[in-house]
């Protein structure tokens, strides 16, 4: 069993340091901004000055998460990111193609995907297992699976999370590829402490997760996942899925029919998180928060097919389920 001892998110929703946020979320509207905490409270100016968006979000989020859990040193740090450090990658690429002389190194150093996990371990002085997963839309699920594997292997507390950042160039790419994502492309970060044992701080438990690449029959895979966890579709209190249009009643019905699960209570989480590769991490925090604050909820399933060839599944249960 895997218990969520703490969770922290930076997003368009008032989630940061706000337990119960799942009750006050609102769909994104045009012009909606990311709600940034005061990063100075988490990161010294000397380091903050260099940090891109994705890095400061990850460091602040993981810092808040650890504080919440009252754990000083996690046994391991595992991070998922779909596109990595885009700001620094773009900056260095630009420099490399335009500057004739010496190139400033900072953006190169911070362009590697594992900068987040590395910085977090640096700040904590943590010498444990440190990993970064990058499998586009299922990067977070893979990080979560790795964290679960570590607990199976005997570790006690894992800091696991995901982050992705938006740069304007992504919008230009979308326009040129005729992709019209709605709601818009954005950034986000969510971090969790996954523990081997429950405590009074536990929000919820992760019953199971899966990341299926080149998935064929999605409803079949979802059924198999539920079967092996001895959960019937009727037991699901809520299904969070990655819709790709502004959700209409039609789309929910479409999803229910697609899943052959009528009467399913569904919610498109992208409507609240915005679109970024690891948005399913937001969904997990939302699910854990909702279950913690609503006694009657027992099972929440997260179905992430943000990219249709991949399927990420996470089954969140209440601690007593």
């Amino acid at each position: 069993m895997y218990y969520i001892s703490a969770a922290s998110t930076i997003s368009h929703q008032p989630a940061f340091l706000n337990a119960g946020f799942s009750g006050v979320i609102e769909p994104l509207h045009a012009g909606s901004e990311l709600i940034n905490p005061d990063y100075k409270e988490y990161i010294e100016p000397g380091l903050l000055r260099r940090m891109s968006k994705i890095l400061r979000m990850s460091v602040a989020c993981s810092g808040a998460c650890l504080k919440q859990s009252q754990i000083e040193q996690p046994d391991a740090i595992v991070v998922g990111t779909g596109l990595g450090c885009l700001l620094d990658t773009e900056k260095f690429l630009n420099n490399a193609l335009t500057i004739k002389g010496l190139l400033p190194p900072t953006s190169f150093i911070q362009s590697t995907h594992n900068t987040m996990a590395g910085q977090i371990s640096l700040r904590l002085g943590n010498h444990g297992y440190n990993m970064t997963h990058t499998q586009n839309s299922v990067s977070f699920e893979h990080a979560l699976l790795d964290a679960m594997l570590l607990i199976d292997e005997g570790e006690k507390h894992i800091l696991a999370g995901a982050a992705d950042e938006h740069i304007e160039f992504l919008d230009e790419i979308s326009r040129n590829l005729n992709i019209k994502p709605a709601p818009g492309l954005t950034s986000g970060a969510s971090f969790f402490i996954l523990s081997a044992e429950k405590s009074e701080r536990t929000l919820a438990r992760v019953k199971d997760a899966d990341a299926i690449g080149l998935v064929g029959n999605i409803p079949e895979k979802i059924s198999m996942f539920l079967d092996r966890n001895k959960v019937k579709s009727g037991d699901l209190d809520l299904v969070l899925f990655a819709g790709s249009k502004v959700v209409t009643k039609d789309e929910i019905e479409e999803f229910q029919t697609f899943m052959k699960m009528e009467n399913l209570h569904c919610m498109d989480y992208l409507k609240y998180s915005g679109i970024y590769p690891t948005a399913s991490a937001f969904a997990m925090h939302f699910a854990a928060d909702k279950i913690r604050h609503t006694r009657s909820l027992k099972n929440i399933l997260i179905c992430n097919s943000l990219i249709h060839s991949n399927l990420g599944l996470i089954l969140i249960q209440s601690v007593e389920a």
Partner: protein
Amino acid sequence: MEDLKEELKKQLIEQLNLEEISPADIDDDTLLFSDKGLGLDSIDALELIVLLEKYHGIQVTKPEEGKEVFRSINSMAEYICKRKS
């Protein structure tokens, strides 16, 4: 020389993205790499090498040279004048 030092302070702040600091906060003899001074690190040292080339046309080919050269604004200014003459 004084103008050069003022210039260096501005360039340093920009190159290293020291958002919270103004030239008035940096003394000519502030130890740039000491925790009691500006607390810069080895990545900053490389950035300063870029700064020297970009703004003053001076090349520092070995990163180890940097230790003495970048001790303070004073030592940087002295080095620039020496290399230019």
